């Protein structure tokens, strides 16, 4: 897999530079301060589950370009601690917490069956091979009994991790998202038009 991080498209852009500007209101500052400064401790996952999920997230959203990676695992743990789902589940899937507990154990068992080692002790390529097996519907572990491996990979692991990664201001910098804009909003809406408080693209 190509490990190159995307080239910096919006060099120098920092959405948080607008913190004290008319683009950030009080409730947004409060919400983002919690995301940046109050990363929750482990409360629901076991230490082993946490380490495993952290290793999975490092493959789903690799961040070799960051000394301090965007945290994903702590927010999934918080979601499970609060038992906060999406408002529906497939009748074939267990409830939220049970699905995660069973699914994480099954990923680890999949790694042992494919490559004779726990997932966290595999190198990156081998970890990716395990995840590709899940994605491709080629999972073999009996741990998937009553839990669709591909659906767990896409709709639980991947969708959740991507949701938390792209809810972080560092990710907004990376893609040039204008971010919060209340009450100032935006004025220039047309093709190739940019307000002064938006990211400038290197072209």
């Amino acid at each position, binding site marked *: *897999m*190509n*490990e*190159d*991080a*995307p080239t910096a*498209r919006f060099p120098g852009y920092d959405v948080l530079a607008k913190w004290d500007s008319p683009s950030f*209101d009080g*409730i*947004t500052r*409060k*919400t*983002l301060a919690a*995301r940046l400064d109050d990363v929750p401790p482990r409360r629901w996952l076991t230490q082993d589950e946490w380490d495993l999920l952290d290793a999975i997230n490092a*493959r*789903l*959203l*690799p961040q070799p370009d960051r000394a301090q990676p965007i945290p994903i695992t702590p927010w999934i743990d918080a979601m499970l601690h609060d038992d906060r*789902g*999406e*408002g*529906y*589940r*497939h*009748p*074939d899937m267990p*409830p939220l917490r049970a699905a995660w507990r069973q699914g994480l154990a099954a990923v680890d068992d999949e790694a042992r069956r494919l490559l004779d080692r726990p997932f966290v002790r595999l190198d990156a390529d081998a970890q*990716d091979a395990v*995840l590709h097996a899940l994605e491709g519907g080629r999972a073999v572990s009996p741990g998937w009994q009553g839990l669709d491996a591909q659906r767990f990979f*896409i709709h639980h692991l*991947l*969708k959740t991790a*991507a*949701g*938390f*990664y*792209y*809810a972080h201001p560092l*990710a907004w910098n*990376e*893609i*040039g*998202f*204008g*971010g*919060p*804009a*209340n*009450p*100032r*909003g*935006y*004025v220039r*809406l*047309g093709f*190739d*038009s*940019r307000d002064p408080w938006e*990211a400038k*693209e290197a072209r």
Partner: protein
Amino acid sequence: MREYDDDDAVDFVIVGAGAGGATLACKLAEAGFSVVVLEAGPFWRPLEDFASDEEAQQQLYWLEERLSGGTDALALGGNNSGWGVGGSTVHFSMISLRFRPEWFRSRSQLGYGFDWPITYDDLAPYYDEAERALAVSGPVRYPWGPPRRRYPYREHEMNAAGLVLARGADKMGIEWSAVPLATVSAPRGKSPPCVYRGFCNFGCATNAKQSALIVWIPRALAAGAEVRDLAMAGRIELGADGRAAGVHYRRNDAWRFQRARNVVVAGYAIETPRLLLNSACGRFPQGLANGSGLVGTHLTTHAGPGVWARFDEAIRWYKGPPNMAVCEHWNYTDAGKDFHGGYAFMSQGPLPRAWAQLLVTERHLWGMALRREMADYNHMAGLVAVAETEPRACNRVALADVRDRHGLPVAHVTFEYAANDRRMQDHARRFMGEMLAAAGGKDTWTSDDTSHILGTCRMGSDRETSVVDADGRSWDVDNLWICDGSLFPTAGGVNPSLTIQALACRMGARIQALAARGEL
């Protein structure tokens, strides 16, 4: 706010404070009736509660457990449900379109679905009323539908995402239009004009959006209605006389009972049938007011096939309302179709979290491939359809064995597309793909989704083939009413909220007329 006791037998208790319930509460309170609205979620204060943040604002959705299965299982939650006063209008896209007149006679005039028990002409004055109440900002001349009065407010400046649709449509010689939107383009009362911050689907923090929370609820309160939030309705009580006596609801961990002379169910197309099914009793063992056996059946949705492409220009589709340009060509053109029914499609503006989740669920991108694809965020544009699906008995809401935190059986939703639904989506993907390419889009790809849930307690002309009559009144229990998207016999190819509000305005007028004749 005026408050009532549980033992006050109010004229109307309304379950649900969304597009249907809030609108009807306003109309009934202004007509002098005593009204209590029970709403499962909280009473939002947008300026204090709505962060400019996708993740935090998931709080606007109905996140309680539901089961969703079938061959084409529907995504619920954020796709199509609201939680709190204002319901899903708090996070809707503000698209305010009317039904095509022929859709009210879709069976007899177009050969599919079911006829409505009312005509377009019956509803037209209430479309006018709803558009004025929402101060809809729209174009001087809307290209489709019968002649109509001007929209109350001028159209918004088009963003680049909308200009993509316009450019493609112009190249193909197809009509397009600015979307009539329920967000103000100029000051109105306490609403400043829209500032194009783009978080419309996550709650408007300026009150420019003319949601039910901003428009109908303040009017209802001013007219003496009470809105009781965090009140989960569990069961409608049927009296010995065969009439509804009130609603059992749970608030602050205690079960309470609100007496009422009339009960209105306005919980949208999942919670409304769920409440009726959970209110089964000796006289109605299959669910309250379910003599027809139709409660929960014929669920329809809007299929949302999407097409996406990369553009050389910067689009920055996060700016402005998410859907600013529309094409209703295939709602009003019948020749040359290989399907019946219709679809509209609109320009798009997903925020980063939603866009990333679409990339992973549709294209299974992960790792650096996902990060690299996301880096093109500002150069993407797309079109997504609102495509009518066929009402069929097999698509339905039933009760599951699972119970929620109140001890109530949760809804089990089953859905599968008909062959016609699939042909329509294939057609939409082809046509929208052509338009994006004509606009200069590259590397086009497609996606699947759905939005809106409709039709599980349909209105009709006789008790054998419908749950309620043209006034939303139950055939079986004459002081029980339904007022929400459950009423729709067919889904039409446009977003439903304006039609729900027009129906509620009409119901308000009809109830007043019936009361004046002593027929409540």
